[in-house]
């Protein structure tokens, strides 16, 4: 049904919303039978260059517990100048400023094409953005140098009025005072002592008699600037800070043989969080943590300083052998929550060859909407460019970042919201549209997303609560309104409102319609988010089993088959790819920890639960392009059979970009044919994937790891581990064939997986 495809695409483009079902079953019972819940991926700040924000404030429903925003779905009585809320049916008069309203003179928010609209709120003082660098100095000289340069460079990218601060740490934590002339001043904290926010502020001399900042609203910028010597406008301290960064030295405390440097990451973060908490609560702020190793002392320590005790692995964790894990996690979680409450987001830039404790620290970013970037060294383009991209700007010259977002969801009465999965925290706002059934972070209709960018996407899960015996009137529609308030990077407060509606359908009579309204891509990603969410707290195999069961149930529900006859099993087009997504999801690093360190798993999951649908799909099922002399580049199956000697393959897994030269190509390249004029075409062929890769690299955040390898190269494993092992050393029939390359694995292939699936789906005993 092409129409649904278009519909879905159109909806995504306009509203940034992808629903798993685009027709909603009209009762709770039927909804549960659909296996995949009614849910959506919502990108609150989806870039809409064509959508100019309006310069006034939204009109709200006057019912106290509704407060829905006037939208195109509302019924309007132009004569009486009254509108009816489509969520609570309250009739509201228009405010006086709408006096001139008429059918031909409608405000934007009533026009259907403005189902998503952005308001600029003029109220309240605007606060400058705040960037607080928290820098680990226990780095190798070369790394530190690179990091210093990156940081110095970043100063030129910041808006001139933005406030910057610098905290460095190693064995001690130093908060640098930036305002002073002459002597460089810093406040030093012991790296082993946990401090309350109050203590920190006292120690920094920030306690003020009458704290105007405590009220929960942004402080007037000039006050704030005066009150905080540690956060100063870039334009004022530019030179100063550049020098300061230039003079940064490696942590001077000697590191004895066989020890790790003492790194007080935990305290450094507490200080950063405490500092912002005291000075700029509820103001957009970004704490940027740069670490070159795991926290080794004080609260939040992840591993001791003895090199002979390695940092925890999945094995240790499963054996309950990770001494510091629970404590550290708890510590960082508490901090993340505090930070989230204050609307500050925390980025982690971890560059080290070994793990750096992301597993414990991930919540800092996950709960506050910060970035996590993982690299091998600060002296790599991966880090440098990624970091630069943090400060990228949109067409209007504004940063692609927003702060202090609050997402509120309003639903019509037949639907309630179960929860959300994404870089957010609950604001615990109970209301009539909150379901008791929690999925993801639930129990609330409001979430705080401290750091947002245009691709930040939340998975939101709903529940149809309509009782089976109280059918929705024919032609009725369920509506959902997403209200996102945030601080734009140009410091404006804005509110973006997206209102969508979907038709109700009776699952008994209209099951085909419902089936065809299924968005398998969205569904796959949403189910994957649920799976990943579960994986955080459950054992890996349990999650896989749950996913399998859901898949089987879905197939049973929608497959066409004869009982107990696997060969008769068929899925309609709208579901046909779904099992394959699930197959790859099962093999993905989001659910498989084998071969990944806990840090890597955390890192992958972090990105998975925040990227939009396209990127998420790439993560689930990487894209493989093939380049050859036989024709233009083409996408090929992610299958071992695609690995041919005369092809160049480009695989994009989101995290890695692999260019794989087939055996023959590799030999040619080695022989240097590309240097010869007569083999210009070969040169072109070699360049083609590079150019395409470059294109991806340009836009992707974070920068993927770029891998250029060839047949037999050690790095080829990145490719080999991803493709469907249709040919392995086990299925001998593949041996000697011209096509494909066998993968040395015992993993099941897609074919085997499907066979099993069919068998189970048609089995009457299941």
């Amino acid at each position, binding site marked *: 049904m092409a129409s649904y495809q278009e519909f879905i695409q159109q909806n995504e483009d306009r509203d940034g919303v992808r629903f798993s079902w685009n027709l909603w079953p009209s009762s709770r019972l039927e909804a549960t039978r659909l296996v995949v819940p009614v849910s959506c991926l919502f990108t609150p700040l989806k870039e809409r260059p064509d959508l100019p924000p309006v310069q006034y404030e939204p009109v709200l429903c006057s019912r106290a517990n509704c407060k829905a925003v006037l939208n195109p779905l509302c019924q309007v009585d132009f004569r009486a100048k009254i509108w009816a809320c489509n969520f609570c049916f309250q009739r509201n008069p228009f405010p006086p400023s709408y006096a001139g309203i008429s059918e031909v003179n409608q405000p934007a928010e009533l026009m259907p094409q403005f189902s998503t609209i952005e308001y600029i709120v003029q109220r309240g003082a605007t606060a400058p953005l705040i960037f607080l660098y928290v820098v680990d100095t226990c780095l190798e000289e070369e790394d530190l140098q690179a990091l210093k340069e990156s940081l110095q460079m970043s100063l030129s990218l910041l808006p001139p009025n933005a406030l910057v601060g610098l905290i460095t740490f190693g064995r001690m934590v*130093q908060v640098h005072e930036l305002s002073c002339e002459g*002597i460089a001043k810093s406040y030093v904290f012991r790296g082993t002592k946990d401090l309350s926010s109050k203590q920190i502020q006292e120690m920094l001399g920030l306690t003020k008699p009458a704290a105007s900042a405590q009220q929960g609203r942004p402080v007037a910028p000039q006050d704030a600037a005066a009150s905080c010597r540690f956060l100063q406008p870039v334009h004022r301290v530019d030179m100063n800070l550049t020098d300061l960064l230039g003079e940064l030295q490696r942590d001077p405390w000697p590191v004895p043989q066989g020890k790790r440097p003492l790194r007080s990451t935990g305290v450094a973060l507490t200080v950063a969080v405490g500092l912002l908490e005291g000075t700029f609560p509820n103001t957009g702020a970004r704490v940027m943590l740069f670490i070159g190793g795991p926290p080794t002392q004080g609260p939040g320590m992840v591993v001791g300083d003895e090199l002979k005790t390695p940092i925890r692995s999945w094995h240790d964790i499963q054996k309950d052998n990770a001494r510091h894990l629970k404590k550290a996690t708890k510590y960082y979680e508490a901090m993340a929550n505090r930070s989230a409450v204050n609307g500050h987001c925390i980025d982690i830039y971890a560059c080290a060859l070994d793990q750096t404790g992301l597993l414990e620290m991930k919540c800092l970013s996950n709960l506050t909407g910060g970035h996590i970037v993982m690299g091998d060294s600060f002296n790599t383009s991966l880090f440098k460019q990624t970091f630069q991209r943090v400060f990228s700007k949109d067409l209007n010259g504004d940063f692609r970042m927003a702060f202090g977002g609050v997402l509120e969801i309003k639903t019509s009465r037949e639907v309630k919201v179960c929860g959300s999965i994404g870089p957010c925290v609950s604001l615990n706002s109970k209301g009539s549209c909150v379901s008791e059934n929690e999925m993801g972070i639930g129990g609330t209709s409001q979430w705080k997303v401290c750091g947002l960018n245009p691709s930040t996407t939340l998975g939101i899960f709903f529940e149809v609560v309509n009782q089976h015996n109280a059918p929705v009137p024919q032609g009725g529609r369920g509506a959902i309104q997403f209200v996102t308030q945030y601080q734009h990077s140009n410091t404006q407060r804005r509110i973006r409102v997206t209102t969508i509606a979907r038709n109700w359908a009776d699952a008994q009579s209209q099951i085909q319609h419902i089936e065809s309204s299924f968005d398998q891509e969205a569904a796959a990603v949403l189910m994957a988010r649920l799976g990943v969410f579960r994986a955080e707290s459950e054992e890996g195999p349990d999650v896989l089993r749950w996913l399998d069961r859901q898949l089987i149930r879905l197939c049973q529900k929608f497959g066409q088959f004869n009982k107990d006859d696997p060969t008769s099993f068929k899925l309609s087009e709208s579901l046909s790819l779904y099992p394959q997504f699930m197959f790859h999801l099962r093999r993905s690093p989001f659910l498989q920890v084998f071969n990944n360190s806990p840090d890597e798993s955390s890192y992958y999951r972090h990105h998975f639960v925040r990227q939009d649908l396209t990127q998420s799909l790439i993560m689930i099922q990487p894209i493989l392009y093939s380049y050859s002399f036989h024709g233009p580049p083409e996408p090929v199956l992610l299958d071992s059979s695609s690995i041919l000697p005369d092809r160049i393959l480009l695989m994009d897994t989101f995290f890695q970009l692999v260019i794989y030269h087939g055996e023959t190509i590799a030999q040619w390249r080695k022989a240097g044919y590309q240097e010869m004029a007569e083999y210009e075409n070969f040169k072109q062929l070699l360049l083609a994937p590079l150019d395409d890769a470059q294109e991806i690299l340009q836009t992707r955040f974070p920068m993927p790891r770029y891998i250029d390898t060839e047949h037999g190269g050690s790095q080829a494993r990145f490719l080999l581990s991803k493709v469907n092992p249709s040919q392995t050393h086990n299925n001998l029939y593949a041996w000697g064939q011209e096509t494909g390359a066998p993968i040395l694995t015992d993993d099941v292939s897609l074919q085997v997986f499907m066979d099993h699936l069919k068998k189970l789906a048609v089995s009457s005993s299941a």
Partner: protein
Amino acid sequence: MSQQGYVAAPPYSQAQPGMGGYQGGFGGGPAQPLYGHYGGPPQAFAAPPAGMMKSPVSSAAGMPPPPASNQYNPNVQQNGAHPQRYPAPQAASVYGQPLQSPYNSMASMAPPPAQQLTNQMSSMNLGNYAPGPMQSPPPPTSSVQQPFQTSPPQAMGQPQMSPGPQSPHMSPQMSPQQSPMSGPPMGGPPMGGPPMGGPPMGGPPMGGPPMGGPPMGGTPMGGPQMTGPPMAGMGRPFPGPPGPGGFQQPGPGAAGPPGYPQQAGQFGGNMAGHQPGMPGAFPGAPGGMAGPPQKKLDPDSIPSITQVIEDDQVKRGGQVYSTNIRGQIPPLVTTDFTVQDQGNASPRFMRCTTYSLPCTADLAKQCQVPLASIIKPLANLPENETPLYVVNHGETGPIRCNRCKAYMCPYMQFIDGGRRYQCGFCNCVNEVPVFYFQHLDHMGRRVDFYERPELSLGSYEFVATLDYCKNNKPPNPPAYIFMIDVSYNNIKSGLVKLICDELKNLLEHLPSEEGVEASAIKVGFVTYNKVLHFYNVKSALAQPQMMVVSDTAEMFVPLLDGFLVNYQDSRAVISNLLDQIPDMFADTNESETVFVPVIQAGVEAFKAAECSGKLFIFQSSMPTAEAPGKLKNRDDKKLVNTDKEKTLFQPQKGVYEQLSKECVAQGCCVDLFLFPNQYMDIATMADVPSHTGGSVYKYNNFQVETDGEHFLRDLRKDVQKSIGFDAIMRVRTSTGFRATEFFGAIHMNNTTDIEMAAVDCDKALTVEFKHDDTLSEETGAHMQCALLYTTINGQRRLRIHNLSLNCSSQLSELYKSCETDSLINFFSKSACRAILNQPLKTVREILVNQTAHMLACYRKNCASPSAASQLILPDAMKVFPVYINSLMKTAPLVGSTELSTDDRAHQRLLIMGMGVEETQLLLYPRLTPLHNMDVSIKTHPAPVRCSEERLTDSGMFLLENGHSMFLWLGQAIPPDLVQNIFNLPSLAHLQGNMCALPELDNPLSNKVRAIINDLIEKRPNSMKLHIVRQKDKPEMVFRQFLVEDKGLHGGASYMDFLCYVHREIRQLLT
């Protein structure tokens, strides 16, 4: 002497209560009441005319003495006569008896004969006094004296005599004062009133000394005169005949006017006599006074410290003192001599209270003379003495006795052809290591005796091997950290700027070991108020960096590299920093400070740098900020003179105690410069310095203009002092005795190892010895003090001082070998420690009792028999009572609410670390007349006795005790003198707060300034020069230092004290 002012003040009386038991004795005050009781009856008589006539006052004083009362007063009177010692002159044996006789009269009354003692003691004594008649001693009695004066001789003899005319003691005069002692007995006394008068007179002559003479005869009159001559004897005053109640103080009762007596006592004598000016001195007195004084007791007649010093200087000054003889008594500390080390440590390093130990514990107990040694291990040597040799015994380290671990020294006896040696301490026989073997000569001495310092010298150093180092690692050079309080007070007073400016200069002259050019000392800087600021002054930096640590609850050092640096390398950065510090805090309004965290920071810094060192802390207020060691004002004047007074001296426990330990463990010495405007709880704040070998300097109400130079001089001296760090000392002794008590700025974890974070050239500790067993006269007693320390250049060294003493079973030997200066050092320290745990009153009683006991024991066992009324002092200890009396008048020991608690605590701590020279000077300040000196002579004019009487209206005197310095200007000072010194037309133009003399180019000014500078240079502490005009208010302060006079805050005059002691002695003897 503006006594008027004081007169009124009844310091005396008040004081008494406070004072130890003895006070009562002196004190007129208390006495009065007593009179009432006892006196009741007597008074009657007294009151009468007689008293009146002369001067009520006098009578009063005299009276007191009811029999029983021990107090002095009573006796005094009676005895008064005695005091004047007779002429004892010639005869060492006895004082001029003849003379005495007259006086005796008084005495006679009572138990006459007995009284006189002969001083056998020493002839010397006699000699000393020779001078003319003594004047009236003084004080309390003064009143009494006056009376005398009026009607001198006759009075004495006769009146009193009435009772016993027969025995006219000279004492009379003295007696009055002292009389107390005997008082009671007097049967005859009744007469009282009149008598008094009499007695006094007698007094005049003899000052007092030994009553010895008294018995003599009866001629009253004679008395007086004789006195003059007699003095010879001991100057000791004394006594009042024992029980004599001869006179009772009839007068006293009469006197009624309590007030007077006292006053009279104090100034009476003197005033009247000397200073006419003082007219009003006593109210009642006038009449009396008027009578010119003919006779007062002659203070010159009692043993004089200045005389003793002068004599010793004459006798031994400028000579070479070779330490080759066991038990040899060194010259006095005040004497200028050169030491040649010939096998015993120089007295500059070690001095003993006696150089002849009693052989048995019983003897020691009997005489009660403390056996102690005062050790100043790093004392500076004058340039003409050889610095210590450094001995290296190679990798195995110094050779030591296997059993007792004593180091190789001259007392090791080589035997067996040189293959073995017997330890001089434990007698263990040890093998001589092969490399150390040497043949013996015909005397049994090693052939290389003169080549090896450890065989032939008393003091030398060993190079310490790694075994003697912390963690077996060679030490790093020490570091000095300057920690400046930058709170509001210090900024406002300009102190911070002053320090910063001075440091730039000072750091160029950090000390280094001899022969090494560049100082190895590292320096670091911290400023603080409620938080601490550390500075990174690494030479590579263009600008210093400041690191603030606000976590004062758990101190740490925020940086390692760049905090402690070599000054020469980082000069530019440091100078930049020092320029900026005053500005950085210029507009601070932080007035709270922390303290303990500051020291902790220093300790942590040393820990991190693995070195030892010294903290220079400049603090202006009590640490009240929320942090460990926060203090509260616990000053409570109500506690003074109660049993709880000791709590004022006790440091707060807890964190401070712990901190001292940490400091010592790390070798962190703390020097504290305090600039208080109010109470700071120095007892607590100075606790750490006082356990880490540090010093405490205090500048009350600091003002840059007046105190700046003074402070900077102290700072310079302190920084440049030679010093050793991370020291452990042990005193080993030969068998039979051992070190049991240790006093000083030290820390002890066990009973033998003396730990000091640092020890500098001025710090001395006092070690007391006790017998374990019998000592042998033959072998004598050896002691070896071994100090393991890190030099200023970071080398580990062992410094060894050896000293051998005689042993004797004769007490007379012991008394002969006593060293008063050392004794007083011991008593000062033990008293200062005792007041932490005992009421002051008890401590003072103990001091007096022990003094009396020591003297009584001498009298009993060593002196030839003589009348009990004679005070006989061992020659070596003849000035001992002055010191003890002065000690009891020092701030810590005198219970007065007028003294600030901090000052008292501070002085107490100062005393704990003092060496012999310092205690000597502190307890007997130098009072030097400058108005009549010969400016062409190079040497300093001779000091005179510390008494008001020595001052003259037209004179100019310099008084100095090592901590304070006064230039006293008489009212009638000639204008040309003023012109020469101050370039002012008259005294009236003198600015009150002047603290330095203008530089004028005339011989007098040059000379005076040279003297002052020389003294300031010579003393371990710089002193602020106070210029005091006679009768100006500040003169009060000055007068506190006239230690022979009655104390301003309580405490007896020398004369009174002597009388009192004498009475005690007599009691002991009966």
